[in-house]
């Protein structure tokens, strides 16, 4: 498991045996076969940290998990809630009780007064069972995102966009004087001064996440 010197992080491929489960612990993007080998499930970046072996996929759709913070777009206002596009194979649902704190008299009030078609929201995944995805807006950080621009990145690369303890995203925010929300579903919302530069930088991270020295490159890019 030596790292390659050509500037590209080591790429694992589906079916590649990465180690033995006697020596390592199988983490994200891997499975253990009948012989006890840890095997990659994806074409992705190989990562060994401590005893953990994981593979970060280089592509793929977003699969929601309870607790995920996501960005969604309201696509339909229904009688008792909202249908939300969350950049995933499934549509999500935000019910009235999870979307609004106050008492709503459905006879008098239209729900589009809270969230209307096309609105962008920052929300939490409440449950995700058998393709039935429920969202919640409960919590201080969850709200409608007004104005701004949406950018898509590969969902599995969201951690790279955020960086260690938010280092990468904070750097971008600071250098481009923007406010940024990153959804774990791969949608990123940006508002502020140098939005174009922020978009360019984030796209760059998405494309080059498998290359060494990414942080240095991004730092340089942002200083130009």
């Amino acid at each position, binding site marked *: 498991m030596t790292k390659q010197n*050509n*500037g*590209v992080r080591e*790429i694992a*491929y*589906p*079916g*590649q*045996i990465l180690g033995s489960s006697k020596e390592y612990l199988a983490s994200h*993007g891997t*499975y253990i*076969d009948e012989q006890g080998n840890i*095997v990659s*499930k*994806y*074409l*992705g970046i190989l990562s060994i940290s401590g005893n953990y072996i994981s593979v970060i*996929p*280089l*592509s*793929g*759709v977003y*699969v929601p998990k309870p607790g995920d913070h996501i960005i969604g777009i309201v696509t339909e206002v229904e009688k008792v809630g909202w249908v939300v596009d969350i950049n995933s*194979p*499934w*549509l999500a649902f935000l019910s009235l009780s999870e979307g609004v704190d106050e008492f709503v008299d459905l006879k008098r009030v239209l729900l589009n007064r809270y969230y209307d078609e096309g609105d962008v929201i920052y929300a939490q995944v409440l449950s995700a069972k*058998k*393709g039935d995805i429920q969202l919640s807006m409960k919590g201080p950080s969850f709200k409608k995102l007004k104005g701004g621009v949406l950018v898509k990145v590969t969902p*599995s690369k969201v951690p790279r966009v955020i960086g260690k303890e938010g280092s990468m995203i904070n750097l971008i925010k600071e250098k481009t004087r923007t406010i940024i929300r990153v959804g774990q579903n791969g949608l990123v919302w940006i508002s502020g001064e140098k939005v174009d530069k922020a978009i360019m930088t984030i796209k760059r991270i998405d494309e080059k996440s*498998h*290359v060494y020295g990414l942080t240095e490159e991004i730092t340089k890019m942002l200083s130009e």
Partner: protein
Amino acid sequence: MGKIKGIELLKNGKRLDGRMPLEMREIEMKVGVIPNANGSAMVRFGKTIAVAAVYGPRLLLPKHLQENDRAVVQCRYNMAPFSTDERVKPGPTRREIEISKVIRQAVEPVLFLENYPKTTIDIFIEILQADGSTRVTSINATSLALADAGVPMKDLVVALSGGKINGTLILDLNGLEDNNSEADMPVAFTANKKEITLLQMDGELTKEEIKKLLKEIFTAGEKIYQMQIKALKDRYSE
């Protein structure tokens, strides 16, 4: 579409295109050839060119086709009208319907489908040029396209055809050999575990010949496997 009998396909131990019996044609693989697709690949064996695109997992409609605990895999193998000497009439033929099914079954065993209830993983294959062994070429392209799409997989799938001409066992039949062989046998298997996921045969073979041919296909398949790995890694070279 009967076979021309008695055609000389082997001269001085060499095939008409100059290959040795167990020699494969020139093989080319490229991953990520269709930007719109979640995953895609082109694979060429000699003059046979297959392009595979994977869309999904995406919501499957109409609803009654959905499975509540896993993704459904759908596959369409299609020959471009200009892919053969005589124009192929558009629209699925019986041959294409059957090949679509066996290709789907050749890759399904390596997919983790349970994370994607109610969805479909659509595999679309276009044969741009056909010169024999189109289904195995398609399977190699599909294996790469699925990996490129980020669909979780147990293993890659390798495919190769074997056959018999003038009493001699051969690998990677071209179109002329395909049409006039004594037997042809397309095989697909999981690269690591050597699980056979596609096995068909037409013609006349003894049990011993089948065993011998399978062994040769496994051996030569290792080369195809290494090419698949390289093609996948090349997608993310700098």
